[in-house]
């Protein structure tokens, strides 16, 4: 066989292999397509519809009126302020109590951590409505918290713990805490303890080793959990609706109320679009922050 013929056969082989590979890729992509189709039909189209509704007036002409209303009407501005305030507070409280919890779990033997982790996982699995109901029972005027505090003499009259901001924040912290603790714990577990031992050998006190070595290394997990918590809070509906008793309005509730109560879909759609844009911005921001952090940590 001549060299050209051999070459020709190689070419044919290569072409055949490439064609096979393409066919295989098409097949593998086809495996992803039912899921993608679902997202296209049930997420992209409906949310796109919302975008359209927010940008047209009653006659179907393009308008920015719905968006200007959001920024100029005090009621809407107030809803944004309340939503951000609640989300920020809930996230901060979650960090304050979730960080020590994740840290402790990451430091004890894995076997024990696995058992204690159920304390985080079980509420995570439990129905949101069940947990919200439980808080309603606990926090009401004659609920356990109030009667306990009155029994030990800490207060003389029941505290208003529910149907207000306090109730919403307590309930939301309970729901959000696992979302912060789970990624944080995973990242803390993966920290190489050799660094800490090295620091101790070099004479660093445990406190110093923690702040200079452990804490910076746990930052990626913390940032990931923190942003996830904050973003989930922004769009949260059920717990604020029940524990707020209609007195605390966040963006999601306002959007829902507009659809079910009044025929004011335009401003509600605009509010929804702003919520979606904010959510996306925070998620992109966190991706950027995480890549920066990971680059810095090497």
């Amino acid at each position, binding site marked *: 066989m001549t060299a050209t013929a051999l070459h020709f056969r190689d070419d044919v082989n290569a072409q055949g292999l490439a064609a096979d590979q393409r066919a295989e890729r098409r097949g593998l992509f086809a495996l992803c397509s039912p899921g993608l189709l679902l997202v296209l039909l049930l997420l992209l189209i409906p949310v796109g519809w919302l975008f359209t509704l927010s940008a047209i007036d009653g006659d179907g002409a393009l308008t920015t009126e719905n968006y200007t209303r959001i920024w100029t009407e005090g009621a809407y501005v107030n809803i944004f302020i309340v939503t951000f305030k609640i989300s920020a507070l809930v996230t901060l409280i979650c960090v304050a109590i979730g960080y020590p919890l994740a840290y402790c*779990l990451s430091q004890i033997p894995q076997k024990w951590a696995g058992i204690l982790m*159920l304390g985080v996982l079980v509420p995570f699995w439990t129905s949101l*409505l069940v947990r919200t*109901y439980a808080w309603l*029972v606990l926090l009401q005027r004659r609920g356990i918290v109030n009667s306990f505090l009155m029994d030990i003499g800490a207060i003389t009259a029941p505290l208003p713990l529910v149907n207000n901001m306090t109730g919403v924040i307590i309930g939301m912290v309970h729901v959000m805490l696992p979302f912060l603790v789970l990624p944080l714990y995973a990242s803390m577990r993966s920290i190489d303890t050799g660094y800490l031992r090295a620091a101790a050998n070099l004479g660093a006190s445990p406190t110093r080793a923690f702040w200079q070595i452990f804490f910076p290394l746990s930052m990626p997990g913390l940032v990931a959990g923190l942003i996830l918590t904050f973003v989930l809070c922004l*769009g949260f509906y059920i717990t604020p609706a029940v524990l707020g008793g209609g007195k605390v309005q966040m963006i999601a509730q306002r959007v829902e109320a507009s659809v079910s109560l009044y025929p004011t879909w335009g401003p509600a759609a605009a509010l929804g679009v702003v919520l979606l844009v904010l959510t996306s911005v925070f998620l992109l921001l966190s991706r950027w922050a995480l890549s920066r952090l990971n680059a810095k940590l090497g």
Partner: protein
Amino acid sequence: MEQHVPHSHRFWLYGLTALTLLFLIAPTFIVVPMSFSSSRSLIFPPPGWSLQWYENFFTRPQWQDATFVSLRVSFLTMLCATPIGVAAAYGLHVGRFRLNGTIYGALISPLMVPVILISIGLYFVYAQLGMVNTTLGLVLADTMIAVPFVLVTVSAGLKTYDMNQEMVARSLGAHRLWAFLTVTLPQIRYSVISGALLAFIVAFDEVIIAMLISGGEGATLTKRMFSSLRDEVDPTIAAISTLLLILTTVPPLILHYLANRKKTP
């Protein structure tokens, strides 16, 4: 891990952890004694015991119908979401497309978009198609929400699985699908079962979509619970909550135990 700080210096940390875990665990279980209360009001401890709220739940047609709707929708959702999620996880794992990240992101995007927006958008679209208050509409929507859970769980399972085993089966002449079903699937079974279970629970627990696109006879249990929680607090909710608590925690706990037992022989 080697302990470089004595336990005695850490009592504050252990105390704090215990308190936080108590905060996480205890509130949920308060619904159990409440469900056996003889009183209509939410006094704790209950003044007397009774099974009236369970009787209410098991005999009132409104609760029974809602339970059947929920069970049916969740079961169908599990049947749809599990194969879709497993297929996508496998495709992404083996395919390693240039757009892998984008496809993955698109598939889990239902988790990122606030559910209230998905529900309202769906309500508009379903209203045009006459699909409001249909089982099909609810199952499709719940499947979209549940697929990410299956995808994430199964992807994690595939990461720890040695794909060469499937390659060996295929090089010995097994058809790809056959190789997957007989070699790969049994080894990632815990992730697949976890994913399926999550899909069921997610669909069963879904409130916001059901609130907007289901109603009347087709209302789900959670929709009825939610309206009841907003309007007047009926202790039947405590009985339902107790049952839900068992339904949503016992199977995952068993699975958690089985999966961990396998890992540490």
